[in-house]
């Protein structure tokens, strides 16, 4: 196994486990079955520790170890889950994540900074364990190892503990022989023993070097050592067995549960005759057996016929230890289950997927080009074949895009933590309600939506939701609610962030906007338009009005980020009831279904899902709007807008586009029809060009520009207000 790859797997898995851990921590207080949650948290910590041990990441092991100790106490019911403990464990989660990230960046040992960051957490955890902070003692192995060669600060404590507990055989006995190839396989028996020490206490251990040959025959890469371990732990047999999971095939493992029958110990001694005296010593020393019992045992051993087959002893052993068999069976079942799961999903590098999407994009362009030629040759057979190919290419495109689709649930779940942290920071009691988690969207979109959403959620919590007293006074529940919702709507995904807070104060925003010169006084603005002002750069940063303080801080950044994803933002607010910010995003960033239109000799592509209908050109004489079945439809003349050469053709057309509830009509010369379009981003040089979002290459090799409909609609909306006013005015003047 390639170690680098294994390490990558470790990092990915650890991150997933940390995510699980965080989610469990966040929901534990409301959970119906907290015990199950505690187990989940424990499992996550435990697995991370175990795997880190395998990679020799001692700093992670030692930190996680303390976390796990606290969790063990919780599991045993000795500690209860309190708010404070959850916060502490969340911080620990963060710290582990930091260390894992450092490992991902190639830093395999702890640096000073990490240690310093971890130290207060460890202190806090130790406080829960009822241990005084012990800065002077290395805490890798807080459990005592029996003979202490030199006085340690808390030696007295340790001695007492051993003496106090070592009564009777309440210790597991683990007999361990490592196979010769363990080292060559990249495993170090030491890490397993270290790890064992983390799930319990190694009361005594005997290292057996009897298998070590003489110097000439000794191969430094072969493992010769064996161990006999007296072990105290609350863990069950399976857990102990699982410690050695990775060397399962490479070691001989025998575990005797506490208070096993003397016969079992005898059988154990029998199997290792050459070392029986030393194992016996160990058993006596740990109080597992008394000296007398040992003596009897050894006598029995000599009395037994040497010819007794080993198998018989084993059967005998199994008969008295049904749990061994059971553990083995469970184990096998587990292995089978993981196998089944693994085969169901495959991890693929995101880069490979991107490459596939790129190729599919090229395929679509090439296909379009071929279709065009086929049509020109007017060969029916070729056209038929091409149409088949085209439909297949479409299917391929759809499934390729589907590969990149991920559920938004993971992104939403992250907000549980944000809400948890921020509500504590603000001292408000706020719950997060999530719906539509199963909505899928493109991976690249998911990656980029995180920051703007965080901003919106924080804003809703900070400025949307009122303090508890105010809420109660207004007859609302004291606990505020922030909602995250996602759903699909005409080719885009809509993510709504809503709060049940005080809502936006229309008059205040308007006053502010007038003061800043954003709006002319006396203008009749629609509510939507007023609310949209909060997305203006720098709005409400200075001289804050309490009710909308901060609402605008960074909102322009949010808007810019979302616009960069070809998305748009809308606000809906009701005073006293709450605010909803709606983010509308395209499902994918790579390919769109386009509709081609021609103006003069230029070809433009319009995203098909934004087109409502196409109508023949008609306009109110001298105005830039038309009457569409009684509605005012603002017109945008592409010829004028893009300064296309030549004069208007005789029969122009209007393409009615809609975005975010607003309509506009684009005046074009000719309608060319549907076309699958691969978006090629415009170069840096064109980054300031408005109303164009990208370009695409046509089958003929020509370039077509893709229209940025949201920008155009916005443009038209401005015009619409004017034209509506023009209508009103003309009505008055009549």
């Amino acid at each position, binding site marked *: 196994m390639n170690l680098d790859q294994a390490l990558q797997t470790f990092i990915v898995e650890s991150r997933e486990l940390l995510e699980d851990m965080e989610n469990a921590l966040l929901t534990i207080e409301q959970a119906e079955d907290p015990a199950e949650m505690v187990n989940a948290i424990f499992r996550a910590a435990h697995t991370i520790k175990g795997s880190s041990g395998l990679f020799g990441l*001692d*700093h992670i092991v*030692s*930190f996680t170890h*303390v976390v796990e100790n606290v969790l063990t106490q919780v599991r045993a019911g000795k500690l209860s889950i309190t708010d404070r403990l959850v916060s502490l464990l969340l911080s620990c989660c963060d710290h582990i994540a930091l260390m894992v990230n450092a490992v991902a960046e190639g830093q395999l040992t*702890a640096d000073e900074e990490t*240690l*310093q960051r*971890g*130290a207060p957490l*460890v202190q806090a955890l130790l406080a829960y364990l009822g241990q005084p902070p012990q*800065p*002077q*003692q*290395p*805490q*890798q*192995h807080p459990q005592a*190892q*029996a*003979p202490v*060669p*030199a006085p*340690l600060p808390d030696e007295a404590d340790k001695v007492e503990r051993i003496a106090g507990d070592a009564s009777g055989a309440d210790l597991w006995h683990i007999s361990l022989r*490592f196979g010769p190839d*363990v*080292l060559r396989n990249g495993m*170090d*028996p*030491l890490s397993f*023993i*270290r790890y064992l*020490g983390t799930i319990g206490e*190694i009361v*005594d*251990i*005997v*290292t057996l*070097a009897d298998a*070590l040959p*003489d*110097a000439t025959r*000794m191969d*430094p*890469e072969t*493992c*010769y*050592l064996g*161990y006999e371990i007296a072990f105290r732990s609350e863990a069950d047999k399976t857990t102990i067995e699982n410690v050695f999971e990775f060397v399962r095939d490479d070691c001989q493992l025998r575990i005797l549960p506490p208070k096993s029958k003397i016969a079992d110990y005898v059988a154990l001694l029998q199997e290792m005759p050459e070392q029986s005296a030393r194992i016996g010593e160990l058993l006596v020393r740990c109080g597992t057996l008394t000296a007398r019992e040992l003596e009897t045992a050894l006598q029995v051993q000599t009395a037994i016929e040497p010819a007794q087959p080993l198998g018989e002893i084993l059967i005998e052993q199994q008969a008295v230890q049904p749990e061994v068999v059971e553990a083995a069976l469970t184990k096998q079942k587990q292995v089978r289950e993981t196998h089944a799961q693994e085969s169901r999903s495959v991890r693929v590098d995101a880069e490979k997927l991107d490459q596939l999407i790129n190729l599919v994009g090229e395929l679509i362009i090439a296909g379009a080009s071929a279709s065009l030629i086929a049509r020109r040759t007017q060969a029916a057979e070729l056209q038929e074949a091409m149409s088949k190919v085209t439909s297949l290419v479409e299917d391929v495109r759809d499934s390729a895009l589907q590969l990149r689709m991920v559920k938004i649930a993971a992104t939403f779940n992250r907000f549980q933590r944000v809400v948890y942290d921020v509500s504590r920071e603000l001292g408000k009691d706020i719950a997060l309600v999530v719906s539509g988690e199963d909505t899928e969207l493109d991976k690249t979109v998911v990656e980029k939506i995180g920051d703007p959403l965080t901003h919106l959620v924080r804003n809703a919590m900070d400025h949307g939701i009122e303090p508890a007293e105010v809420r109660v006074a207004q007859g609302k529940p004291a606990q505020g609610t922030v909602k995250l919702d996602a759903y699909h709507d005409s080719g885009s995904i809509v993510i709504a962030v809503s709060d049940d807070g005080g809502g936006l104060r229309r008059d205040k925003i308007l006053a502010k906007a007038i003061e800043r010169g954003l709006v002319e006084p006396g203008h009749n603005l629609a509510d939507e338009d007023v609310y949209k002002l909060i997305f203006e750069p720098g709005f409400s940063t200075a001289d804050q009005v309490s009710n909308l303080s901060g609402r605008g801080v960074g909102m322009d950044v949010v808007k810019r980020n979302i616009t960069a994803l070809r998305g748009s933002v809308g606000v809906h607010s009701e005073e006293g009831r709450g605010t909803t910010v709606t983010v509308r995003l395209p499902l994918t960033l790579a390919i769109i279904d386009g509709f081609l239109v021609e103006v003069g000799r230029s070809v433009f592509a319009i995203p098909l899902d934004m087109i409502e209908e196409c109508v023949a050109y008609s306009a109110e004489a001298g105005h830039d709007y038309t009457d569409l079945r009684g509605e005012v439809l603002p017109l945008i003349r592409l010829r004028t807008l893009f300064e296309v050469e030549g004069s208007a053709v005789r029969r122009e057309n209007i393409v009615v586009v809609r975005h975010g509830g607003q309509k506009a009509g684009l005046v074009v010369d000719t309608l060319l029809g549907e076309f699958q379009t691969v978006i090629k981003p415009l170069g840096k040089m064109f980054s300031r060009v408005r109303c164009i979002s990208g370009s695409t290459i046509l089958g003929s090799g020509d370039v077509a520009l893709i229209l940025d409909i949201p920008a155009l609609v916005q443009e038209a909306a401005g015009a619409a207000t004017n034209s509506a006013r023009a209508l009103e005015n003309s009505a008055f003047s009549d």
Partner: protein
Amino acid sequence: MTSAQQNAAPVLRVQGELNIYRAAELKEALLARLAPGTALQIDLSGVTELDTAGLQVLMLAKSTARALGGDMNLVAHSPAVVDVLELLNLSAWFGDQVVIPPSPTSFAR
């Protein structure tokens, strides 16, 4: 690895990682210096890592030295070495005096 003569007892100073990658090298170096009737000292103060392979070689050297009628002693154990000897309860097996170095300031090595 550097060797020096100190009061007639040869000292072998081992530095850096003492793991499977260097186990063979160490084995040769150690065995070459073992001689009947002499007590070889191994200075472990510079050892940053000790794994099973390294440990085995040390154990081999110890038993080989005894078989030859000499001895081998570990001195100046580094924290990494102490950690392993502690974990496996081997200090008594080697029978050397282990001086616990001042503890590191924090909980990880």
